[in-house]
């Protein structure tokens, strides 16, 4: 006979404001099998948990139902409390009176009645719960980091420095990411490359880090502690072992007019190229799309000039498989290509550029060697207009969110411009200035007050060309929407940060959830900011949402700490909510008929074949068996099995049946 304890939480007033918690507890007490039913202001608090623990001990409870918030929030808390009181943690269930009842319904009798129904459902389910023991799984202590920008670099170094092996995968020819493109960084104006490149070199030289550049994740199998990642090593056409990085090849390459991705199209590169001089690894690759040989079968000049014979044409992509225990996603972001804004004339007017292009103009390693010269004629612009929120915070454009970094880098751009072009005039159109962060507000004030950037609050409606000038038409909303017209030499759009291309595809490959803007979703916005919903996969940096460098590095170290924590034990304990094939009587008979259709249905290849033998050792029949280390507990096999020979612990047929019947108050 079950002895169930029901514990109804008020959650301060979150539940009790619309649900009569006292009545819920009273009604629950009347249910068959309920030994004790109480309500309390904060069940999750220490005194609240003590109430539960004492009731378990005093009344000898066989099951506990906590009627409080979402089990996604506090199920672990209460299960732990029960375990501490000597009750098997899987005899504890939660019913969601807050998110699914008090917060979504008005205060009335029906709401309280619903709460009673919800409690009854879980009481009936809990009566059929069975004590379960955690499953232990070995952990392979090697991490995979995807993305070699500052986030991936930081995470890799942290994990590697803790003594674990790291596989770092970067899709481009060099690591470094967007940070390597930046000129100087706010709020200190230190040179981006000066602080980044030593880290890049550290990655390359670290004994614990294996770097796969020009590579992408092909597929991922397995689960926390035991992932199997297949990585595609894209053919570089250059043997990195033989190449010394002398540069003879790209100096002689006849294709010289390819817009450089690193310079955001403001400079040119060759078909065989390293993205930038400080690239890590500093060995070229051939861009097959643009190479003469790959396009029309003739050329091979690089092969002729290479002193070490490193060029290897027509080699296919290769694949490597790595067994890793944890994965860090650090795939970064992209900036919205401003052809998104026909009204601003990007692409039509050469001197309308993006913030990232301005970074290249301002960078000492950039196409103008750090001089601010406009793309159209190379003249130094005397009047520059900066437009903040180009795309961001614009629901009509489908980007309602704030890109977070633009206010700061626009202030930085105005500042750099004023430093570099004495007597130049800069105007910043903005919606609001968001400068939360250490020394950020001071930085913006400096741009305005010391460097004389002219900040205009308002939006730009249109840009057009007239007599060699860009006419920027906007309004100044602080002056009663007064129209403003500026004749500019160059316009810089602080275009929105968006998810990296291929983010959705990658998320699907890895079974990680993502938000409507294709940024990867964290497991909890506050309390699990670097975890994903898939155990063992963590995220950091701007693949989650636009982030500046300090935040990116902080989350990268956070994700690394999670990985190191996971690797601190040899075994991982997993929830035993897995499927099992029944074994009746003496454990050697099963109702399973061995059709093995469950095997095709299982997404984790967790179902194996097991031969049932008689005493003489002859095979009587072959039945299914679930490998509890591989099973993730989805239960697809359970509802598929015709003879109901397979069931799932924690969500068993009997439990779900009882719960459904209890919804409708039919015993």
């Amino acid at each position, binding site marked *: 006979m079950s002895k169930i304890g029901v514990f109804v939480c008020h959650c301060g007033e979150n539940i009790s404001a619309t649900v009569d918690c006292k009545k819920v507890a009273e009604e629950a007490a009347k249910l068959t099998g309920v030994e004790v039913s109480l309500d309390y202001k904060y069940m999750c608090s220490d005194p609240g948990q003590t109430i539960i623990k004492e009731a378990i001990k005093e009344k000898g409870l066989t099951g506990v139902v906590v009627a409080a918030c979402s089990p996604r929030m506090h199920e672990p808390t209460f299960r732990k409390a029960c375990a501490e009181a000597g009750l098997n943690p899987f005899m504890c269930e939660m019913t969601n009176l807050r998110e699914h009842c008090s917060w979504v319904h008005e205060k009335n009798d029906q709401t309280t009645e619903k709460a009673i129904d919800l409690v009854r459902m879980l009481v009936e389910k809990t009566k059929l719960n069975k004590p379960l023991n955690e499953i232990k799984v070995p952990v392979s202590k090697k991490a995979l980091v995807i993305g070699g920008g500052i986030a991936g670099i930081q995470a890799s170094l942290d994990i590697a420095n803790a003594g674990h092996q790291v596989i770092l995968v970067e899709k481009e020819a060099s690591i470094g990411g967007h940070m390597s493109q930046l000129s100087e960084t706010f709020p200190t104006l230190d040179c981006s490359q000066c602080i980044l490149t030593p880290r890049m070199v550290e990655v390359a030289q670290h004994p614990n880090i294996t770097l796969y550049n020009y590579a992408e994740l092909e597929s991922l199998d397995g689960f926390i502690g035991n992932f199997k990642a297949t990585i595609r090593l894209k053919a570089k056409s250059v043997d990195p072992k033989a190449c010394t990085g002398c540069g003879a090849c790209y100096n002689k390459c006849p294709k010289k007019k390819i817009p450089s991705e690193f310079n955001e199209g403001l400079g040119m590169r060759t078909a065989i190229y390293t993205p930038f001089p400080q690239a890590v690894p500093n060995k070229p690759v051939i861009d097959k799309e643009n190479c003469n040989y790959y396009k029309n079968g003739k050329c091979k000049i690089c092969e002729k000039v290479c002193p070490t014979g490193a060029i290897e044409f027509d080699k296919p992509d290769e694949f490597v498989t790595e067994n890793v225990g944890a994965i860090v996603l650090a795939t970064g972001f992209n900036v919205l290509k401003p052809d998104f804004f026909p009204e601003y004339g990007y692409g039509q007017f050469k001197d309308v550029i993006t913030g990232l292009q301005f970074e290249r103009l301002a960078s000492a390693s950039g196409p103008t060697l750090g001089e601010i010269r406009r793309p159209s004629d190379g003249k130094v612009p005397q009047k520059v207009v900066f437009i903040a929120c180009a795309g961001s915070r614009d629901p009509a454009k489908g980007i309602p969110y704030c890109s977070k970094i633009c206010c700061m880098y626009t202030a930085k751009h105005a500042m750099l411009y004023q430093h570099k072009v004495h007597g130049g005039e800069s105007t910043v159109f903005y919606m609001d200035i968001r400068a939360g962060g250490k020394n950020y507000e001071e930085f913006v004030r400096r741009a305005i007050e010391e460097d004389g950037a002219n900040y205009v609050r308002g939006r730009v409606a249109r840009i057009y060309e007239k007599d060699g000038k860009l006419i920027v038409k906007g309004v100044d909303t602080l002056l009663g929407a007064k129209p403003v017209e500026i004749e500019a030499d160059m316009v810089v759009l602080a275009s929105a940060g968006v998810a990296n291309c291929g983010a959705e595809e990658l998320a699907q490959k890895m079974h990680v959830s993502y938000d409507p803007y294709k940024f990867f979703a964290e497991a909890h916005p506050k309390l699990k900011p670097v975890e994903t919903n898939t155990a063992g996969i963590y995220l950091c940096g701007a693949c989650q949402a636009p982030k500046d460098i300090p935040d990116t590095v902080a989350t990268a170290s956070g994700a690394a700490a999670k990985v190191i924590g996971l690797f601190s034990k040899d075994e991982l304990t997993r929830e035993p909510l897995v499927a099992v094939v029944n074994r009746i009587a003496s454990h050697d008979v099963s*109702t399973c*008929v*061995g*059709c*093995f*259709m*469950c*095997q*095709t*249905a299982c997404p984790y290849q967790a179902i194996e074949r097991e031969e049932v033998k008689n005493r003489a050792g002859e095979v009587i029949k*072959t039945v299914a068996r679930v490998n509890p280390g591989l099973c993730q507990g989805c239960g697809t096999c359970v509802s*598929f099995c*015709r*003879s*109901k*020979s397979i069931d799932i612990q924690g969500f068993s*047929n*009997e439990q779900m*049946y*009882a719960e459904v019947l209890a919804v409708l108050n039919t015993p």
Partner: protein
Amino acid sequence: MAELNSKVKELFEKDLIDIFIGYEEGTRNPRPYFAYSAQDADNLVFNDKCQGNLAVYLTRKDLVGGKRVGISASYFALKSISQLFDENQLKEDLLIVLGMKEDGSILEFKGLDEIRTYLSEAKAPSKQKDDELLKELSEMSQAERWQFWSDELSKCFKCYACRAACPMCYCTKCIIEVNRPQWIQPWISTQGNMEWQINRVMHMAGRCSDCGSCGAACPIGIPIHLLTHMMTKTVAANFGESNEQGNVLSTFKPDDKENFIL
């Protein structure tokens, strides 16, 4: 027919089989017959009056367990045999299949692959009458269909002849016998009868040969074979005719089409 008798005789004489599953003449229609010797082979018949799906006997352990079996198989039985192989219920080296064509000639299959090839090319016998009934029913209103089926299924007294006649119903413990929880009411009520049929038909999805033996077996003539016939057509319409590895419900395509999920 003489061809069948001599062929089976030969199988026994060469000691290739221990039992042959076929038909013998009955009082009105031919009935299933198990031949154990070359002599018995003379009693075998096969004609268009032969009803049922003999593949049903292939999973009866008491009958065929460990024995080398021969069988005369209609188009539908061949389909069932192919499916039973998919479901690991048959062993290729213990089974000799003689396919019976509609003109009475015999197809000797060397192995499963040949059966599959034959099935992929052969045309399914037409089910004109069933198709007409199906059309009639789908043209009814939902309320009329409910009336029709609740009337029909109110007559069912759960003898499970439909289950016994079906080659695909070989579970050692059928869902109807599962009592924790009691998924289906064991007593006779329209609802329980309906739920039994819904289960049966869902379990047949993509596995059913559409032989109609279930309906033919029903002692009170409830047209339950229309349910499986309809399911077979629905499966084909939604997921194609080809029998991929596994059955339709244990496989999927990411681009399966539906129009009812919001």
